[in-house]
């Protein structure tokens, strides 16, 4: 009941706004925000729902095969649903202020409702086909929202890039689904798959149906879907460009929820990853690499939203690494970090959603107050002009850096480092710790440069919180509270966060995370205090390791050049051999039989029709008689 309200309300909101967006200007905003608030209330009831797997709506039904809209209600989906609907509602409210003067407000809120519908679908999906359906639909809403200001060439390119990069991931995801569908006898229900891949199941480790190569291939294909959606290396390039969208969108879709869907999906199919040691190692490796690489890129960015975007990339890499590390730990017999009752990746997803949404919304407030200035070197001194924004932003920053014992980020990050430590692969642990150092460094740099010192431009000098308004400040305050308290059991338990079972962390892990915080913060203060210009210049990081340039060359060669060559070949060979050659022969023949030709196409076509009828007549009436 509550599941269907949460799922369908935003769908109808999106549909109504699409149908009448030119007639309902203000009403569209009301419908969308209203539906997000009602969904959130329904979600509070949903937190108490029983574990269940039930049919919601029919979709496909052929013989024994069903791919329907059925929901899987368990601790994972209830916890994730809370994150989505809670942050979704806050972002709707924030957008009331942020998008106040936008001409295309109805389109914006309609797309936002479409997003809420699709994201809810992913969270509730009880089978992989349904997950894929909504997976693509969040891609569409992300496309629409990144391209909200489509008149700008950069936004138009960014939304196309996001969709296409995700398509490459979905290519793998689909293959993975097909493989599982085939191997599991035509069912892609998550529940069925889980029992099939459990130790002792038909496809699980140790059973006669187990096939190592197949399991690894299926796991990696499914993982490719997550690589696209959660922007992991090598498909990470779309996420920074996605910052072309309005800032509330960046907060909701490109930081807190949609990009985390990849991690959520991986946790949903963790049984598959646990069944393949090689896949687990590759997933952990890709995650660690992304985390480190993106953190390095973040240290040299100047656009406030881009710094946060690279930070999101890096944190998503962290979560993906945790998924792989937990699977590796389980393979080595460390059941304590297994998926039940908690999962470090999901727990970090949960805490990260609050403080990263806070940071993005905070940056939105800054951008709004500074008249769309996004370069941190053109800000400075905002601490005094925007105190509420400053304090909440600082809380978010400290949570992301993992201020020991105080903030939620500390506990979830420690969980991930613990999993990396238990995985038995020291590279993961070192990469994780190094990323933590860099995270503290680039976030402290951002805060020092933007908020401290003197205002470096007029727009920063005249920035004032007065214009920002309550609709934007209230979500900041609420999220700041969550950034501190969300790891506390009093919050985490009723919200069904997948907090890993409490055990005293290994001393090395604790030491490493505290040291990482101190080193990163200290270095940032040392380098950036009182500076008005970037003191460090590392071209490689500032230019994002030249991935965009490299990919542009690959696309030009592998796609555009190839398309040109294939087109030329197609013209020469197919057209030449199959059309031109016979035509030429016919033309020769025709010259000999010119008597029959009148030169009018009508004549020919009727002749053709007549000929056909003649042939049929011959075959039907003459041939049989000849035979007998």
């Amino acid at each position, binding site marked *: 009941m509550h599941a269907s309200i949460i799922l369908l309300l935003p769908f109808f909101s999106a549909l109504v706004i699409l149908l009448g967006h030119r007639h309902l200007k203000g009403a569209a905003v009301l419908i969308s925000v209203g539906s997000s608030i009602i969904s959130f209330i329904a979600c509070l009831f949903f937190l108490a729902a029983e574990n269940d797997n039930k049919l919601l709506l029919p979709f496909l039904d052929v*013989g024994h095969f069903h791919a329907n809209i059925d929901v899987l209600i368990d601790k994972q989906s209830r916890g994730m649903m809370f994150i989505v609907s809670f942050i979704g509602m806050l972002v709707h409210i924030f957008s009331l202020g942020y998008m106040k003067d936008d001409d295309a407000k109805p389109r914006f809120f309609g797309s936002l409702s479409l997003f809420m519908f699709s994201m809810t679908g992913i969270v509730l999906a009880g089978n992989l086909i349904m997950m894929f359906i909504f997976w693509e639909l969040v891609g569409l809403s992300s496309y629409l929202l990144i391209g909200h200001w489509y008149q700008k060439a950069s936004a138009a390119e960014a939304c196309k890039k996001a969709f296409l990069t995700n*398509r490459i991931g979905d290519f793998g995801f689909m293959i993975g689904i097909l493989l599982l569908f*085939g191997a599991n006898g035509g069912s892609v229900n998550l529940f069925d798959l889980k029992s099939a891949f459990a130790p002792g199941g038909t496809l699980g480790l140790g059973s006669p149906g187990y096939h190592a190569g197949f399991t690894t291939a299926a796991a990696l294909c499914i993982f490719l879907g997550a690589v696209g959606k959660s922007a992991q290396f090598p498909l990470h390039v779309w996420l920074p460009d996605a910052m072309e969208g309005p800032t509330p969108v960046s907060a909701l879709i490109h930081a807190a929820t949609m990009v985390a869907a990849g991690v959520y999906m991986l946790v949903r199919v963790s049984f598959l990853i646990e069944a393949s040691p090689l896949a687990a190692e590759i997933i952990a490796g890709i995650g660690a690499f992304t985390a480190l690489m993106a953190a390095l890129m973040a240290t040299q960015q100047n656009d406030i939203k881009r710094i946060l975007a690279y930070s999101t990339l890096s944190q998503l890499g962290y979560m993906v690494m945790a998924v792989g590390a937990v699977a590796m730990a389980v393979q080595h017999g460390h059941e304590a970090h297994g998926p039940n009752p908690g999962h470090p990746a999901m727990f970090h997803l949960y805490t990260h959603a609050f403080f990263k949404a806070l940071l993005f919304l905070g940056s939105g407030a800054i951008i709004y107050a500074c008249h769309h200035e996004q370069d941190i070197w053109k800000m400075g001194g905002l601490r005094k002009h925007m105190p509420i924004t400053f304090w909440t932003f600082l809380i978010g920053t400290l949570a992301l850096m993992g201020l020991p014992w105080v903030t939620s980020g500390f506990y979830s990050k420690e969980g991930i480092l613990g999993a990396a430590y238990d995985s038995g692969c020291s590279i993961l642990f070192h990469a994780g710790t190094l990323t933590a150092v860099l995270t503290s460094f680039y976030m402290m740099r951002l805060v020092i440069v933007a908020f401290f010192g003197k205002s470096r431009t007029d727009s920063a000098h005249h920035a004032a919180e007065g214009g920002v308004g309550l609709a934007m400040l209230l979500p900041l305050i609420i999220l700041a509270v969550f950034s501190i308290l969300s790891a506390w059991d009093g919050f985490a338990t009723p919200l069904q966060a997948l907090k890993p079972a409490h055990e005293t962390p290994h001393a090395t892990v604790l030491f490493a995370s505290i040291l990482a915080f101190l080193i990163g913060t200290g270095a940032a203060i040392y380098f950036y205090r009182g500076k008005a210009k970037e003191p460090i210049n590392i071209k490689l990081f500032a230019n994002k390791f030249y991935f965009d340039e490299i990919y542009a060359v690959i696309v030009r060669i592998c796609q555009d050049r190839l398309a040109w060559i294939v087109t030329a070949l197609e013209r020469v060979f197919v057209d030449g051999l199959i059309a031109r050659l016979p035509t030429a022969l016919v033309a020769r023949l025709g010259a000999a039989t010119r008597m029959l030709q009148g030169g009018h196409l009508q004549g020919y076509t009727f002749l053709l029709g007549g000929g056909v009828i003649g042939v049929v007549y011959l075959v039907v009436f003459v041939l049989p008689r000849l035979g007998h």
Partner: protein
Amino acid sequence: MSVLELIIALPLLAALAVWLGAPARAASLGATFINLILVFYTAVQYWGKTGLAFTHSRPILENPSLSFAVGADGISIILALLTTLVMLAAIWQIQDRPAIFYVSSLLIGGGALGAFLTTDVFFIYAFHELALIPTFLMIALHGRAEPAQRKAVAWKATIYLGAGSLVLLAGLVWLVLEFSGGSKLTFDLEALRSQARLTPLPDAKQAQIFFVLLLGFGSLVSLFPFHSWAAPAYATAPTPVAMLHSGVLKKFGLYGLIRIALPLLPHGAHVEWVQNALLLMLLGNILVMGLVTIHANRLDDTLANSSVMHMGYIFLGIAAGTEIALKGAVILMFAHGISIALLFGLCGRMRNQLGTLEYNKLGGLATHAPAFTVLFAFGTFASIGLPGLTNFAGEVMIFLGNFTEFKAGALTNLQWTVILALWGVVMSAVYMLRAYRGIFHGSPATGLFMIDPAFSQRVPFIFLATTLLVTGCCPWLLLNLMKSAL
């Protein structure tokens, strides 16, 4: 008299009436609208049923037994729905054109309905030919190119499709002769089917006949490498003809394969050499034509080539031959028909208003024509295969249908083909989003812009877009018409 006879006769009679001087628009729209209601009525009547319904037979000849026999099952009804929906939209969007536009649209649609709703191989074939003739004439007489060029294009299509039809005819005759070994020759599909069940042909012979039919039907559907008529023909054809041929008439070849070739030659498609040949050809459709489409730099070129490409997926469903895949193929036929008709219809409007379809001369149309943009987006995302629009349901069923028989660690040729074909889904996103970006996003490159058409001219397109959304969210609506096992 069966309701199906009425459905076939109505557009042909309306065409005659218009030709004799009846008010063209009113008569054509009226007849098409009544026809849509009739087809809808048959669909509702057939809902959830199985087998052949609404049958009626008028004997014409004793031996060989030939009769004007009509009858419909779910596949025919879905295709008849497609035909009448596209006909209504195609005729509705005609503006300020001579009566021959209405006559030809009615003839093409009527011919297609005849082909889909009769159950006698002779008439199935003859109705299709009837529909082809006005297609050629309209390209030659009213095509959108210089007279010499459009005649050349019409010629090319005529030669290709004429040759394809002759190969097809040879295959059908072979088939009929093989099954009528005794004294009685029959063209009745049901009689042939029961014959095929009782005394199936040896596999080797099935393979040979299937291959001939595949080439014949295939060249009507622009199966690679017999496709090069299609792109220029669609780019040149007048808008209603492009909508009706690419949307409806082209499905005839696929319908024939599913309706005639597969049931009569159940093993033909699975004999190794035939299957491998089919897989290679359909990969040609998907991968080669996908790249050719990426290279296109005009909207009509992109759409025409993409339409060739998408046929590959339907052939993939036919190659798999499992129940899920074949039903998926039928859904994709319906979906592709609606979406390509929508896109060609909108493309025709753009050409009329802007005078060019080259991407580098366009841009930013979304600002002044928001409703038009939304409609175009429906077509774009449908052809990309976005869930929620019908094409996705068809495609995903075809893919799944290839994996119902699966051994871990040993993929069959079919399954490798699916994996390669899936890359085509990425390619279609590339060319459609490039087109969409080039035309609607950004700012006008050369100052060209257009405004939304009046509401009455948007109706046919809204109609098609709504169909995509409704059957896309509820594909079981179509599946309920196909309860019988294929």
